[in-house]
């Protein structure tokens, strides 16, 4: 576990699972992508990260995942030990069968059993011995969710995990992810370009702009569906914050 800015590790109940302070990352001399970003995520909290294309959402996620060793920058990051990443592509090793992909790198003796359970949880029971190539895009992404969850992460990082899926499969995946998060209760940081997806899934939506978190709203909709009266309002607000004017919002709705 990384230490916070005073070099202390606090494990009190109200300590955030993720704590980011003054984070800077840049790819070139002229201007940073992340420019003094602060962010806290509570244990078990589901945060959706939205922002225009190229604002640095992936850059932030990769920093939290520790995958940005070649990127210049500084700042404090504290994340839990057990972090899982879900990528936009399922990233299943094509030469390993589905179950072997799910338990890849697990050392526990009951790995195969737990992997089987995880596959059942994502609705892929019976497909243990399939090759990844034989699964549909949605099934591959479910297998990759199983691979992440079987590790019981305290933090789940997901970068547009449903971006490549069709609309119907995506709705199914939303329901599945919600259910899985209720069972496993990891903290989640989900990058998405889809405002509706953010509202439906998250406890909190944050908007990245000019290298910092510009907007941070809590989603308090009892049903988390478009039927909620607050849904359209929140959606309009976030679209507005994204710089999409009302007219375009109406056209796309």
């Amino acid at each position, binding site marked *: 576990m990384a230490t916070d800015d005073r070099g202390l590790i606090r494990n009190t109940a109200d300590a955030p699972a993720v704590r980011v302070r003054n984070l800077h990352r840049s790819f070139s001399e002229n201007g940073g992508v992340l420019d003094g970003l602060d962010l806290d995520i509570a244990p078990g909290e589901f945060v959706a990260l939205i922002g225009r294309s190229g604002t640095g959402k992936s850059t932030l996620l990769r920093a939290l*995942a520790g*995958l940005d060793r070649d990127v210049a920058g500084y700042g404090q990051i504290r994340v839990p030990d057990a972090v*899982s*990443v879900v990528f936009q*592509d399922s990233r299943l090793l094509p030469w*390993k069968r589905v179950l072997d992909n799910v338990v890849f*790198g697990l050392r526990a003796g009951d790995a195969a059993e737990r992997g089987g359970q995880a596959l059942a949880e994502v609705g892929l029971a019976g497909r243990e011995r399939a090759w990844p*190539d034989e699964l549909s895009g949605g099934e591959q992404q479910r297998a990759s969710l199983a691979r992440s969850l079987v*590790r019981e992460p305290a933090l789940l990082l997901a970068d547009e995990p449903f971006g490549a899926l069709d609309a119907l499969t995506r709705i199914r995946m939303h329901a599945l992810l919600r259910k899985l998060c209720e069972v496993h209760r990891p903290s989640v940081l989900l990058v998405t370009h889809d405002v509706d997806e953010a509202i439906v899934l998250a406890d909190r939506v944050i908007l990245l702009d000019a290298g910092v978190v510009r907007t941070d709203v809590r989603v308090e909709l009892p049903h988390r569906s478009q039927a909620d009266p607050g849904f359209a309002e929140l959606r309009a607000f976030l679209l507005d914050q994204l710089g999409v004017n009302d007219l375009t919002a109406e056209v796309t709705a």
Partner: protein
Amino acid sequence: MTTTGAIDALTVAKATVPGAGAPKTDARVVRRRLGPGRRIRFAFWVGPILLLAVWAIGSKVGVINPAVLTAPWDVAQAFQDQWVNHDLGGDIAASLERAGLGLAFGVVGGTLLAVTSGLSRIGESLIDGPIQIKRSVPTLALIPLFVAWFGIGQEMKIVTIALISMIPVYVNTHNGLRSIDGKYAELAETIGIGRGEFIRHVVLPGALPGFLLGMRFAVTSALLGLVVVEQYNATSGIGHMMTLAEEYGETDVLVVGLVLYGVFGFLADTAVRLTERRALSWRRTIEG
């Protein structure tokens, strides 16, 4: 919603229970296949058997002059004679041992070097340059040097075959390894596995297609090396048999040797291809 569901069920029921005696018409639209199509059983053997048939018929009809190329049945005769009277079995065993040992050293060496130079920058700078230089010097041109170093015995022969088969294994494995998608390495990093596991589960399987391609070149190169080194003072082996035949002007025995080399090459290549098909069954390629 419910009505459309009911209608769907109705049409489905109709479609799956055809009326008695109704002709089973199949109205699919199938695209013209652009790949090679379904696999033919024993397809490997068709070409060689055809070649044999041409040889036999040509000899029978008299198109092929026996002074140029002995007829297949005379070759069979010579084979039997060599087997019974001249220990052809021992010669074959000696040749196979040489080729097999050399190939084994070459393959292991080539793979180790490829993994080392593929995964570490230091390894690359130490290994890749010399190998590329070695590539441009034909191994066969090095034989006089090896004779000076190792004598004209078994050692020189095995070293030559090992070197000549190491190069294609190195080049193709290295290439296969370097073309593994970087995103798999990234995945392995997020999963938190060590270097050993990474090599075992990601690098080696990912480089396997390249390695197997290298193997196909390597077995042919090993045989080429075998033919050449057996010209050097061999006291056993197919090359030895052929050297004697050359002295006595026995064309039929020469052809026995050539056929044996050909058969070895073909069998070895077939073995690698079968391994390829089993080991790479996860791939959906045009090969099928």
